[in-house]
């Protein structure tokens, strides 16, 4: 298959746990068409799952009438994913989890999702004030990871 440059695939999910797997499957198909290795496809699937769950839970508060949008945009060198919800997005940096504190009961066991996303893809950005009144998380995974280095630090940005 010849992929059109900057071709886009969009999926809309209800804010119900489990439907993140639809986004995972779609993203995996797109990534395989682009030539990503299987280990990078697995990285992408986990990152997208966590981003969708975050959007359902924190963005849309599990209101099933509110969709989570997943927009996959292909380029020659990377796959960009926007995970859109109706929430305002975080107004402060997400703290990194501390496994030692978790294992001593000093920190809740949960709170690993954002850390996994940051660790598994090459760029993460949270865009607040999106056009639809919500916000979105923008992830980028590059085809040639070795040439581009490891995950960049998450940064907050104001969107349009």
């Amino acid at each position, binding site marked *: 298959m010849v992929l059109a440059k900057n071709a886009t695939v969009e999926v809309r999910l209800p804010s119900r746990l489990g439907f993140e797997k639809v986004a995972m499957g779609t993203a995996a198909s797109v990534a395989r068409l682009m030539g990503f290795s299987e280990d990078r496809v697995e990285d992408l699937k986990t990152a997208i799952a966590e981003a969708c769950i975050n959007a359902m839970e924190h963005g849309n508060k599990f209101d099933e009438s509110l969709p989570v949008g997943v927009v996959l945009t292909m380029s020659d060198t990377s796959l960009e994913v926007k995970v859109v919800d109706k929430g305002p997005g975080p107004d402060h940096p997400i703290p990194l989890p501390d496994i030692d504190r978790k*294992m001593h009961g000093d920190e809740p066991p949960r709170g690993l999702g954002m850390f996994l996303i940051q660790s598994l893809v090459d760029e993460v950005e949270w865009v607040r004030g999106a056009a639809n009144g919500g916000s979105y998380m923008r992830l980028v995974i590059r085809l040639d990871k070795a040439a581009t280095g490891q995950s960049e630090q998450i940064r907050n940005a104001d969107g349009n």
Partner: protein
Amino acid sequence: MQTETKATVDKSVGASGQPVTILRFIGDISSTSREAVLGTYERLPEVDRARILLDFSKVEYINSSGIALIIQMLLEASKSGQIIRAFGLTPHFQKVFTMVGITRYTSIFADEATAKASF
């Protein structure tokens, strides 16, 4: 939409001759898996909790909420001096467990035979 988690319990013996309890999980491990993961562990008789192996070989999907359940189990086990080890994770989830730091608190083995031999 999410695949229900099933858990079964098997009893075996480690290389040292000591009994080992194997918790075998099937399906997804996510926020809906609390009963299958923690409930199964908590229902084990005290005598069967000393050495536990977690079998992930029939698990395809683990998300951060599922990992949190595993952390909670490890936390409970560490309070009682129990040993929990794991096998059957895909290479991807072995990487994820290492990233999160779980491997500092448990050992992960490629297969059941190697895992049992570690006890």
